[in-house]
Structures are given as structure tokens and as C-alpha cells.
């Protein structure tokens, strides 16, 4: 074989780590802007903390503290009451990107990428040079503590100053110092993030200490832990060939038939038989032997079959009653309504549920800007504060003709939308906004319209009773003038004329219920 000269440039060929990539492009993780960066880190830690407690089946209790250390320099402390993290997993859990329990599983969780916590640790490290302190315990009297930093080039965690000692604790506490950030109250603040977290998670107790030292304790509105979502099986609708072959390659089943019935939801025996009739190959062959073309045939057959909607136990939304309670307690609205839609599917067979709450009056609405409407966006109960304009929720809300429902710019209205899914289609790694998938927007519209109709009926009906009471008064106001003019034209007695008119008014309102009668 002839020697092929290597071009000069390949001498510098290197592989590099995902951590290095995101260190250089940290704006992609939400670390851009001094105010936003602080909220982003609170968001990442809280998400992990709540997931941890819930997965264990514990009612979550969060402690969040932001301490001012100097100009543009803060320490963030987040502690949960989850199961704690085994010593040998601490590094991977917080100090390595794309490692964790979340990415691979087809189950509804708050976090889903396995990037967030490590990104936060890395942000602390590159702005202060300091590691993140991790303290964790399973609640067995033994506490593990270490300083965690990331070897960015290798995307590996480094643990230093490891300590083990006895003590009362259950859960995990993270302490990270950060620079080049600013704490500022307002709609993009950690305060607002915490407020919204509590609203969408009424089963969580949160203690929050802000940089000015003020402590807010938000108690649970509900004392039961939400049901855990079941690990889902994929739904055949919206499946792609590549997905299908991927599942086939790791299936335990001996035959495609059983693979379809076991590894997917909503494919019954009779559906399988119908599918067999539509494809040119025998479904008794091994799943792993399926070719791309055969998989394409299957996908086509799927599209023609009518599968049942995905089961509801794989998605656990907030729930009508819980959401109602939270909205009532936190916003004290004059009127509210909650809509929970049935599960639907978007591309790739991913099930999702949309929930909407509207709160009118009381503390509802926002006074920022021209429009008093406040839009609260959630994905798997996690508040989304940034990149509002690109979000499917905003698009859904804007597509509604609110005026038709009696809502204008001045209506004090809070619109809460929670998108629950096994995989949230975020627009970027920063998890700031939900992508504009057609199926998702359609569901949001339907939910919002349903809720808006109910609100509309309230807003419009509100004044009816009052009006009828006013009506009688109206006649009584004009009566004397009519009596006077008429008597002057006709030369009849004014008092007698007035009495005749009064009789007519009384007759007309004889059925009036003073506490709010029926409307005519």
C-alpha cells in the first residue's frame, strides 16, 4: 500500500468533551445575562431536588438560600429531603454531563437531559474557581460531604476533601458560589421562580431565604404525594422507522408479533393481526432481523390503524383538584377554572397532557406592561420564565381571541399552562421554552378555549342580577317626569297619573327577588 501523506491540518485532530463544548457555549444552557444566570442555577438545582424526593416517594421539602458574598458574587444553597446519593455516584450525578438516571428512561420527570446540575457546578467553577460543596445522607445517621469540581476536558468529576461523619440528615445539599451574576426582584427573579414552583407543586414545602435575608416559608397546600408516573412504553402513533428499529434491536421478544405487543402500549393481539395483513413479511421473524424497508412497512401500517390514546398512568399532571386548591390559596381569585385534557401523542409516539388554569380577580394578573394578563408556563410542573416569545404556550395563548370571552387588556387574569410529558421538546439545551409542535399547540388551544368559555360565562353573567335590580329603579326615576308632562298636556291630575304609572311598574316587577332574581 502506497503511503498516503497526511495533510498538515490533521496533526491537530483532537476529540473533546461535551463539558468543554458547553463551557465554551454556556449561553446555550441559559447562562447568558447576569440576572438570568442566577435563576437558571436555582432552576437546575430545584428540579433535581424535587425529582429526587418524589422518585423515592417522599413528600418533598426544599430549602433554598441565596447569600450575597460581594458585588456580583453569591452563594446558592439548595437542600432536599430525598434519598441521598451513594458516595460512588455523587461525582456522576453532579459533575459529569450526560450521565445520570434520567436521559434513557421513558418516564415523566422534571429533569431530562442530564446536563443541568453539572452545568451549574461548572458555571460556579469557572466564575469563582471554587468547587461545589455536596453534603448527602440516606438518613441512616451517616453523612457524606465532599467538594466537587469538574475536569472539563475529560467531562469527569473530581471529589476533594471527602468527609464522612455522623449526624441527623436525609437528603442532599448543594452549595455553589457564583460570580458575575446579579440578584434582582421581578418577573425573572428566583423569587418568582419559587412562587411559581409552589403554585404548580402544592405538595411541596419550600423554605426560601433571599439575599436580603428575608425568609419565606411556603407550606404545603396538599399533604399527599402525587402518584408516581409509571415507566411508559412508547405509543405506536408518530413512531419513526429509526425509533422502531432502535426498540427492535434491544427487544427481549423472539418474534416481531410479541415485540409489538410487549414493547409498545396500545398494540393488542387483534391489532397485530390486522397489521400482519397489511405488511409483506412474516411478523414471526426475530425483531432484530427486521430491515429498514420492513420497518417502513410497519410504520405505514401503524398510520392506518386506530390505536387507543396512551394510558393515563404514565403521565401524572398536577390534577384538577390540586391545581384548583393551589390557585385558590395563592391567587385568591374571584373566579377560577381548571381544565385537564386527555393524553395525546406528538411526534415519535411521545404522550403528553395539557392542563390549564384561569384565575380572575383577587391577586390574579400582572401589572407589568399594557396587558394585565399574566401567563405562567410550566413543563412537568417546572416553571419556565425565559424565552416567552418562542414558547408553544405563548403561541397557544395568543391564538385565542380573548375578546370573544369578555377578556380585554384590563382584565386581571392569570393563565397557567402545565405541559406534562415523558419528553418535553425544549427549544434549546437551556430548557427555556417548549417547541411549537403542532399537536401540542392544538391541545393547548382546545384547553384554553374550554377554560375561556367558562370564564366568559362568569364575566358576562356577573352583572345580570345587579342589572335587574337597577332596572326597577330606572323606571321609578323617570316616572315623575312622565307623569308631570303627561298631566300638563292632558290637563289631568298629576298625582293620579303618577299612581297609574306606578301600578304598571309594580305589576311588571312583582316577581322580583331582591337577593337576585331570574333574568328576563
Amino acid at each position, binding site marked *: 500500500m502506497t503511503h498516503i501523506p497526511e495533510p498538515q491540518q490533521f496533526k491537530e485532530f483532537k476529540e473533546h468533551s461535551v463539558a468543554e463544548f458547553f463551557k465554551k457555549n454556556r449561553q446555550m444552557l441559559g447562562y447568558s445575562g447576569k440576572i438570568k444566570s442566577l435563576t437558571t442555577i436555582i432552576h437546575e438545582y430545584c428540579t433535581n431536588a424535587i425529582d429526587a424526593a418524589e422518585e423515592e416517594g417522599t413528600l418533598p421539602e426544599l430549602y433554598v438560600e441565596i447569600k450575597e458574598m460581594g458585588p456580583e458574587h453569591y452563594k446558592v444553597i439548595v437542600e432536599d429531603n430525598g434519598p441521598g446519593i451513594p458516595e460512588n455516584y455523587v461525582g456522576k450525578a453532579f459533575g459529569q454531563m450526560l450521565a445520570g438516571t434520567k436521559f434513557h428512561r421513558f418516564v415523566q420527570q422534571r429533569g431530562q437531559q442530564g446536563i443541568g446540575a453539572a452545568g451549574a457546578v461548572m458555571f460556579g467553577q469557572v466564575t469563582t474557581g471554587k468547587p461545589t460543596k455536596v453534603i448527602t445522607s440516606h438518613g441512616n445517621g451517616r453523612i457524606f460531604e465532599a467538594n466537587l469540581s469538574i475536569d472539563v476536558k475529560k467531562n469527569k468529576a473530581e471529589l476533594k476533601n471527602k468527609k464522612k461523619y455522623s449526624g441527623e440528615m436525609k437528603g442532599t445539599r448543594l452549595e455553589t458560589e457564583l460570580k458575575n451574576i446579579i440578584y434582582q426582584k421581578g418577573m425573572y427573579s428566583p423569587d418568582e421562580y419559587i412562587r411559581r414552583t409552589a403554585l404548580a407543586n402544592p405538595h411541596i414545602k419550600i423554605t426560601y431565604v433571599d439575599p436580603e435575608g428575608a425568609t419565606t416559608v411556603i407550606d404545603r397546600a396538599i399533604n399527599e404525594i402525587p402518584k408516581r408516573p409509571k415507566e411508559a412504553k412508547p405509543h405506536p402513533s408518530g413512531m419513526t422507522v429509526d425509533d422502531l428499529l432502535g426498540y427492535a434491536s434491544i427487544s427481549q421478544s423472539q418474534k416481531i408479533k410479541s415485540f409489538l405487543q410487549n414493547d409498545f402500549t396500545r398494540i393488542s393481539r387483534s391489532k397485530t393481526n390486522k397489521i400482519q395483513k397489511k405488511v409483506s413479511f412474516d411478523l414471526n421473524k426475530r425483531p432484530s432481523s427486521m430491515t429498514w424497508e420492513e420497518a417502513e412497512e410497519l410504520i405505514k401500517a401503524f398510520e392506518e390503524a386506530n390505536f387507543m390514546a396512551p394510558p393515563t398512568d404514565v403521565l401524572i399532571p398536577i390534577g384538577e383538584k390540586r391545581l384548583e386548591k393551589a390557585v385558590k390559596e395563592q391567587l385568591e381569585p374571584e373566579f377560577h377554572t381548571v381544565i385537564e385534557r386527555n393524553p395525546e401523542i406528538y411526534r415519535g409516539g411521545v404522550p403528553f397532557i395539557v392542563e390549564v388554569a384561569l384565575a380572575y380577580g383577587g391577586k390574579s394578573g400582572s401589572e407589568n406592561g399594557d396587558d394585565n394578563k399574566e401567563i405562567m408556563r410550566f413543563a412537568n410542573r417546572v416553571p419556565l420564565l425565559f424565552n416567552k416569545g418562542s414558547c408553544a404556550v405563548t403561541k397557544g395563548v395568543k391564538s385565542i381571541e380573548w375578546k370573544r370571552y369578555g377578556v380585554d387588556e384590563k382584565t386581571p387574569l392569570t393563565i397557567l399552562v402545565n405541559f406534562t410529558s415523558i419528553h418535553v421538546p425544549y427549544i434549546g439545551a437551556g430548557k427555556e421554552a417548549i417547541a411549537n409542535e403542532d399537536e401540542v399547540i392544538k391541545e393547548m388551544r382546545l384547553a384554553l378555549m374550554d377554560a375561556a368559555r367558562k370564564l366568559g360565562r362568569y364575566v358576562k353573567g356577573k352583572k345580570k342580577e345587579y342589572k335587574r335590580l337597577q332596572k326597577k329603579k330606572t323606571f321609578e*326615576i323617570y316616572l315623575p317626569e312622565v307623569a308631570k*308632562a*303627561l298631566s300638563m298636556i292632558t290637563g289631568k291630575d298629576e298625582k293620579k297619573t303618577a299612581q297609574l304609572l306606578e301600578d304598571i311598574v309594580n305589576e311588571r316587577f312583582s316577581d322580583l327577588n331582591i337577593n337576585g332574581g331570574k333574568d328576563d
Partner: protein
Amino acid sequence: MTKDNTDKLALEKLNQLGKELMDQLDRKEAPSLKIPSRSRSNVEFDQEKEIIDITGKKSTRSFINASHVRKFMQTLLVAQASEEYIKNGRTVGKRELYYNLKHKLTGTNRNTWDDDDESSAVIDDLEAILDIPRSQLHISAKSRGSIYGDITLKQAGDEFSCKGLGKGGWAIPGNVEDVEIMDYNAERILFIENDAMQSRLIEEKAYKSLNALLVTGEGVPPRGVRRFVKKLSEETKLPVIVFVDGDPYGFYIHSVIKHGSMAIAHINDRYSIPRAKYIGMTMDDIDKYELHNVTEHLDKGAREKLKHNLSYEWFKYHPEWVDQMKKMQKKGVRIEQQALANKSLEFVADTYLPEKLENEEFLP
């Protein structure tokens, strides 16, 4: 009709109205008024009478209907006040009536009305209910416009001539019901759109050369002037010749003088003069008198007005009008009365009007 007779008729009608309402009350019925509907959908062109009229459809205004009661009261207030004005021999303006009757309703902060849109609408209603013009209810129109010519009138005991008044004429008052014609020496009434054109004709002594009474309403003529010319034409039987700008507005003014307006369709027969003729300006004048250089561009507003004109039944009724509108549309120009000054100042009085009058070169 003399003043005393019109007053007597008005009082009778008002008393009849009061009696009907009282009868309803005595029958324990909620009193209600039948009001000829003045809405646009009830306006039509009556080809027999040649006026814009209402269809005769009526709506009911009931005391016991919450959305009617305020207007019901207002209608009675105006009826009662009108009775009083007639009895006291006084005439009021619309705004004066508004203030005269405005007061707080006992025990409330509400007024009998809050602006004169309310009182104006009710005055129209009352005209329609009683079928007499408001001036006979002693409610006068805006006074605008004047007359110059060889005619002697009598009003409020004064007898006076409308010529020999220098360059001005007699300012036509808002109420002319009681004007009596004592004497006149003229062959026609010339109804002129622009006051400046009237001034030109006064200066040119055209009342004499054209044998005409020169009347202007200064633009779209207000009711006072229209009622005055209507009276003149009825009592003298003189022909009424309309001289306006050759544009959609001019034709519209002519249509109002001749057939009435939609706004007062309920009472047009007391204002409109179906036998009025149109002398000019016409689109054909532009060619005939070589006025191409002094036409004006037909702007957007005028084009809109033109389209509206063409959509009216009473325009379609006159092929000659439609023809003029189409020519105007096609040429995209309009021609004002005063454009004749481009020939010479005296041209209008020396040539244009005499020629047209002699040849009876009129549009209907």
C-alpha cells in the same frame, strides 16, 4: 297656511297624543308611542310623490321597557314644552330647547339629557309622530343663508322688501312658518349653492336681468332655507332653478332640494320641491364653455360621494343625473360654479345663465 292655522293644527295634534296615552293608562296598559321608523332601512324613494319617504313601518316606544323609558320621558318633555312655546308665541333653537328642558331627575344625579344628540333625536321622533315639521312646533332650524330679489315679505308685523339692501340680502331666520308673501316681481327662484356666487349675481344686478329671486343656503342648505324656498315655491308657483357646483356634492344638494334627504325622510314632503330643475354646472359645460383648465381633480372623498349618489334610487330615477355622474367618473374632474370666472367675472350673469334660461337647458 297662516300662522294661526299652523299653530292650531299643532296644538290639536299634541292634545290628541296626550289623550291617547292617558286612555292607555286608564285601561291599565303601559303607555306607549307608535313612532314611524326613521331608520335607513325604512327609507325609500316614492316615485309617485317624487320624494324620499319612509315606508310607514312603525316601532313602539313603551314606558315599561327599560331601554325605552328614558326616551319615552324625553318625548313627552318635548311635546309638553312645544305646547307651551306655541301658546306663548315663542320659537326656540335646538340648543335652546336642550338647555330649557335640561334638569336633574328628582333624587338622582341623572339629567333629563346629557347632550343635545339626545334632544335632537327626540325632536325628530316627535315630528314623525305628529307628522308636522319642527318649525310648526316652534322649534327653529339653524339660521343661515339669505335671499335677494324683488319680493316683499311680512313677518312679526314687519313688511319689508328683499331688494335694495345693498350687496347683502335678507338673512333668512331659523323659523319662517309665519312669513307672509305680500308681493313679488320675479319669474323664477334661483337656488344658489355658494354665497360668493350669490354676491356675484347681486353685484351684477342679476335679480333684475334674470328676473329671479336669488337664494343661497351657503352649501348644503339647512332646513330653514329649504322650508323657506318650499313655502315661496308653493305660494308663488314660481319655478325653482338650482345652480350648484358640477360635482357629486352639487348634485347631492340638488337632490336634497328636489327630493329631500334621508335624514328627515319622515317629513320630507314639507321641504322638498320635486319640480325643481338643475341648471348647472354640468359636465357638458366643460366642453361647451371650454373650462378644461379650471376643472378640479375628483379626489377620493368626491369619488366616494359619487359612488353613493349612483347607489341611490332617486339618482337612478333620473337617467340624466346618472349620465352626468358617469361622465364625471370617467373624466375624473369636477367643475365649480365660480370656475366661470375664468372667462370673465360677468360671464355667469351675462352669458351662462341667460343662455341656459332662455333655451330651458335644464336637467330634471
